[in-house]
């Protein structure tokens, strides 16, 4: 048995390709997940967020209609978003660094390049469970911290201390949890 109770998680798989959905769902079931929901496009996924309140989303980028990046942006910034902190793992055939940057700027937690492998899916899930990134809110961005993990080589003054933290306008339950670091 896995050390995790994946059966307790509600996982939403968003991909317009039914074969890829079946592949990912099969992998998740083998990990022990049983509450798996599927959406064939971003619009349906957006509606399902309210219906099922998933704990994590595995999201394709390239879809007809709303793209994965647009969906992620909506989750993070829309006033209608039921959970702006929802962990999002993006699965995509895009592999160029510009695409990784776009996904990161949309608020994606983890990036997983296709072809999908069992180990890669597992590793990304472990990553959002064990090593969640702090969230950052600036004038132009809201989402997981975009710094690369382990980028502690910077030895200058603490850059975020140059700015005064401000209270969240629309998330009062989290406004006092400032600057708590990941282990």
């Amino acid at each position, binding site marked *: *048995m*896995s*050390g*995790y*109770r994946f059966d*307790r*998680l509600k996982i939403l798989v968003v991909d*317009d*390709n039914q*074969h*890829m959905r079946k*592949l990912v769902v*099969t*992998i998740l*079931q*083998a990990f*022990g997940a049983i509450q798996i929901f599927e959406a064939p496009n971003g619009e349906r996924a957006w509606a399902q967020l309210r219906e099922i309140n998933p*704990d*994590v989303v595995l999201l394709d980028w*390239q*879809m007809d209609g709303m793209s994965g990046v647009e969906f992620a942006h909506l989750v993070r910034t829309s006033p209608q978003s039921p959970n702006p*902190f929802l*962990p999002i793992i993006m699965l*995509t*055939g*895009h592999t160029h660094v510009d695409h990784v940057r776009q996904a990161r700027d949309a608020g994606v937690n983890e990036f997983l390049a*296709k*072809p*999908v492998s*069992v*180990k890669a*899916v*597992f*590793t990304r899930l*472990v990553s*959002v*469970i*064990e090593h*969640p990134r*702090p*969230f*950052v*809110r*600036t*004038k132009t961005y809201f989402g997981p*911290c975009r710094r690369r993990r382990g980028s502690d080589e910077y030895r200058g003054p603490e850059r*975020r201390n*140059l*700015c*005064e*933290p*401000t*209270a*969240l306008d629309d998330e009062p339950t*989290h406004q006092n*949890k*400032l*600057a*708590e*670091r990941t282990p």
Partner: protein
Amino acid sequence: MSKQPTEVFMPPNMLKAKVGGTIQGLDMAAIQRAEAAMETLKEEFTDWIAADIARLGMAYDGFAANRNKSTADDLFRASHDLKGQAATFEYPFIARVASSLCKLIDELKSHEALPATLLEAHVNAIRVIFRDNIKSTSNFTALTLVEELEARVREALERAAHTL
């Protein structure tokens, strides 16, 4: 430089609270179960990739009959799916040809400038690799074909860059 208000905070780790436990590195039992489950899917892979190739063919026909942004987007999405999935479905050369096709469509930007013969060559190459069931990356003929297509795409992109 102007100061920009920045807030950094750690939301409660609801995932960790739900799944409990701890995993150091990989859970090999879970990995093995999932890999075994993937094995059982393999007999469906041929049908799946056949469906994806048929979709690519339809997208190409649609684009050839009516060149516009919508049909170009359909063609890109169909090739992008193959780029991402064909290797999983055990056709690495199809993934590579599809990747070359994606690069052409994506980087050329203008659908009007997409060279019809080069698009068709990619679609036909994918069909032939599938028809001949070429799954090994050591197949010399397929490798030559793929490298030739990639070179032609580079040339087309360079030509387009020079005409800008």
